[in-house]
């Protein structure tokens, strides 16, 4: 008598495959986010390394002497894309990193925006603010769109 039939074996393989897929989910990563800053910022180009240093709290001031104010786009796809491309971190690792910075007295928690329009308005009206959005900013918004170089 065959206890493990071919049918059982195929079902087992299917569940195994499903389990592996669930265990290692691949989030959809959209195109590279667009980096924008407040109009008072002198810099027009940022290197990927500068973006990383800014978002990891190492570089804290712009050329004009204003403190850098970080914002984070809380839309999952944009956030995943930004943190993986520029920071080599997952969003969860990025948030943990900043909780760490705050609770050891090394920095201030970035402002999170789940609405892109609010984020753009904040950056337009706040000296030294930087953020990332999914596409180019709408016409009429007075924000700096950074050119990204390697």
């Amino acid at each position: 008598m065959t206890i493990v039939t071919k049918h059982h074996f195929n079902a087992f393989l299917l569940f195994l495959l499903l389990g592996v897929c669930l265990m290692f989910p691949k989030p959809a990563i959209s195109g590279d986010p667009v980096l924008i800053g407040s109009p008072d910022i002198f810099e027009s180009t940022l290197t990927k390394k500068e973006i990383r240093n800014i978002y990891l709290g190492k570089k804290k001031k712009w050329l004009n002497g204003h403190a850098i104010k970080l914002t984070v786009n809380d839309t999952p796809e944009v956030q995943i894309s930004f943190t993986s491309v520029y920071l080599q971190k997952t969003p969860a690792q990025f948030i943990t990193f900043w909780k760490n910075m705050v609770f050891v007295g090394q920095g201030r928690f970035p402002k999170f925006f789940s609405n892109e329009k609010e984020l753009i308005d904040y950056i337009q009206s706040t000296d030294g603010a930087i953020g990332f959005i999914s596409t180019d900013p709408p016409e009429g918004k007075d924000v700096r769109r950074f050119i990204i170089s390697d």
Partner: protein
Amino acid sequence: MKKLVCILIVLFSVNLSMAMDDELDIHGFVAQGFLKTDHNNFIQNTEDGTFQFNEMGLNFNTQLSDSLLMSIQFFASDFGDIGNDEITISHANVDYYFREWLCIKAGINRGAFGFYGDTRDIDMLRTYVFLPTSVYPEAYRDCINSAKGVEIHGNMYPSLLALEMGDLSYRFQYGFIDIPKGSGIERILAKRGHTDTLSSSTDTSFNLLLTWDTPMPGLRIQGQYVQIGYQLNGTTKDDIFWKQTKEDMLLGIEDDAYRSFLEDSLVITNVPINFSGDISMIVYGAEYTRKNLVIAFEEAIYGQAFDYTIDARLSDSILKKTDSLNNKGLGYYYAASYQFYDWLKMGAYYAVTYPLKDDKKGKDNLVFIDRPSYFAWQKDSCLSLEFDFNRHSSLKLEAHYMDGGTQLDYIVNLDPEGYFDTQRYWYLFAAKLSFNF
């Protein structure tokens, strides 16, 4: 301490009103844990299960100017006999950003220690309930978490022949680390010296930590040296350690009559003893992060270099005997964690502690004379699960399989018989619920 808290609050309020366009950020956390062991009390009553394991903190920070960040954090914790929910200041400082490579911080600063030492109070920042105790002993926590003084820190980006060599960051702390009577480090040193403490005091200390984020993405390497000047005054215990020490002292005397006289007249138990010297710590390690996987290794060498003077009694006179005590302890661990989903993370580590690295079996050193040899090591195999309900709350479940008991008397006071009531192999289960905002 209360006076200092008041001054800081007043200063903070005044400065707050002078703050530029920024508001005050307030963050906080509360964590409640539960501990249970099958044998041996890791802290008080863990054999029956205990809730004497909690932390809470409240953090205020604001940007006073473009270059000046001010931060203050109140903290309370309970870990058996340590902490008892007394409110302390874990840090209160201003950080002046001069350049990316030069920042100066003054006040009460978080003590930098290894990769994760300065985050040990903040449960939600790690996968594990307990950081590996071989490198991060719980008993050291109340002392080395904070230091009054100054810290210079910064980041540099060296290159070699036009090749970028990654990021090099440094933290140099100079100041005062308080090790009062009753603190974890004092208890450990007193036990190692078989001494009842009367007073415990520290000199200035310094701490240099270098971190290299290598050109290989995700790989960082760290090295650190800490030195703390320390004095401990007390009386020698009336125990087998000092009786054996006396026998060893008399071994070299060839004159039988004189040796017999000393055996009867020389007293080195219950007499004043003074330890003066340095506590040092060398920590180094590597951490590799790739997507959801984090692998880490760290090793710590704990040094105690002391001169001690015993006021031995010989008949009616005092005989000062001076000697030196040089101990080196060793701890290391291997750890890995993986985030399977946004809500589930799993971690494991294997951590090994030897309080005396030259006596890993507890056979040679007098320190272990009155206890089972397995107090010369502790090997901890840990498996941990973290469930994140959202960004603000999590639950952790953790199991440890322990071989050895070197840290069993760090927090619980064991009497001579108590050492032999312990068991070499034991389990520790921990659960912890954390909230933060």
